């Protein structure tokens, strides 16, 4: 059985979540059948040359024969994508990435996401239902950017939301709540996705408390299939002066936090 597909996918549904952030549902039975939590898609947003490279976007949810992804409009490519309509066809490579979240039985799990980095964690949270007691820590800049609170509440044991400015729920960073909670009971594992400063803080905290941690990383990407080696991430080596790389598309996007230097 093939492990990756290139498919013309019909857009089944489009939802504007908040300004500039969209959820698309596409029909992709082959991808939906084999995709794992943490994997991503390479989406061709234009077939007429307006953009050149594909856009790597994480899978948000696998739903029977369909796959959902959420993206923020950041530039020309995502702008073009946001104008697609139900019934339009987009060409998709997927499911991509060999480093995925480890879904298995745990006692207690902490999932932490920041901003749009919360979306790649949904499928994971969903798959951990019944396998672990999960707390979802979600950090946003302000109230207006808080998204998918209800969706995460449905699939996790507890949702903690923080905003940098305190305009909604707890003021401050999500990791600070996680740190407080760990004083009572440590989780078996931390799963993380979000902006680099957040990931660095999570990585450092997991190391100091000796908690296993898996992080989903991103980098500018060429092909998504390990051919161009454009999306490199530095990995830990025995000799700290030695520079060695892995690749977000091929070895990730999910990495053991003790193995990468971010």
């Amino acid at each position, binding site marked *: 059985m093939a492990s990756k597909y290139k498919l013309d996918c019909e857009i089944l549904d489009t939802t504007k979540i908040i300004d500039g952030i969209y959820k698309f549902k596409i029909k992709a039975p082959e991808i939906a059948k084999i995709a794992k939590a943490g994997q991503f898609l390479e989406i061709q947003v234009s077939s007429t040359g307006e953009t*050149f490279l594909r856009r790597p976007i994480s899978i948000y949810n696998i739903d029977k024969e369909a796959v959902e992804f959420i993206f923020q409009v950041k530039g020309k490519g995502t702008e073009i994508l946001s104008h697609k309509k139900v019934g339009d066809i987009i060409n998709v490579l997927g499911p991509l990435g060999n480093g995925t979240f480890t879904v298995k039985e745990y006692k207690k799990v902490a999932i932490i996401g920041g901003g749009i980095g919360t979306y790649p964690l949904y499928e994971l949270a969903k798959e951990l239902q019944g396998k672990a007691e999960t707390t979802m820590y979600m950090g946003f800049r302000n109230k207006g950017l808080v998204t998918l609170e209800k969706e995460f509440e449905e699939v996790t044991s507890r949702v903690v939301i923080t905003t940098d400015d305190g305009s909604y729920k707890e003021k401050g960073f999500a990791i600070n709540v996680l740190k407080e909670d760990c004083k009572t009971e440590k989780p078996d594992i931390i799963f993380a996705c979000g902006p680099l400063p957040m990931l660095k803080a999570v990585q450092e905290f997991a190391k100091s408390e000796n908690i296993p941690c898996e992080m989903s990383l991103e980098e500018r*990407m060429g*092909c998504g299939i390990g*051919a161009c*080696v454009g999306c490199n991430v530095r990995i830990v080596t025995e000799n700290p002066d030695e*520079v060695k790389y892995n690749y977000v598309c091929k070895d990730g996007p999910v990495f053991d936090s003790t193995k990468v230097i971010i």
Partner: protein
Amino acid sequence: MRTEIDFCGIKMKNPVTVASGTFGYGRGHSEFIDLSKLGAIITKGTSLNPKTGNKPPRVCETDSGMMNCIGLENPGVDYFINEDLPWLKQFNTPIIVNCFGGVEGTIEAYVEICRVLNTLPIDGVEINLSCPNVKAGCLAFGTTYEGVKEITTACRKVLTNKPLIVKLTPNVTDITLPAKGAEDAGADGISLINTLTAMKIDIEKRKPILSINTGGLSGPAIKPVAVRMVYQASHAVKIPVMGLGGIMNGDDVIEFMLAGAKCISMGSANLVDPESSIKAIAGVEDYLRRHNIDDINSIIGAVEMN
């Protein structure tokens, strides 16, 4: 209808090869296409010892193309011999190994890698004198007649039983000079063009996007430059020319062959669509049928200038 090409003694089923650095050693693409259908596979640039390459970010999109500054990262020739070559041999496709002089980038380093490649069960060697993203080697030799001639002569001496192809840079005033340098040193063929040195600036941060500030521009943006240079080079030398630079489909393949290329390589297209090489082969066959052409060799250099 005949699509077979003999390029420097390398027998290809069709003129479509995949360019070094855009196809790795073929594993990623093998999940999407049958590598046996390609004219040839040109491997990622390989050096004697492993090479790390540059920091991220090392790719970005540009108008009608992309830039990269990978920096010739590769696992070294021993890894290639043990892991990738045996795997590649299962496909019925010629293997051309692209090589360079590693971190040192000296003539001696080029000679050493060529000496190793000369002993392997591969079909040809392409020496890279044209990477814009490394400190040593490549452009230091690749931009002049004398430089290309000197290093090619040295490689030729040890490459006694493999076709030698020299990959040339477009970052020159007159492409015919390095082309002649390669020919006069005894190269069997030349390939061109490698990427054009370029820069893209993030205006919000007021900094170049790529980690080493500049990178190599590729994709359709450079295609007209490549067609012009293929035309010029193929008229300046008698050895065959492999054309590349922004080829996306069968029509582009035909255009390069009319300009004088005996075969072509697809590069960035492999990143956009892993099936693009196979689609281009179908496009070439369609062109030949539409024009009642029996032998693809008859279109090589067949452009009629105004």
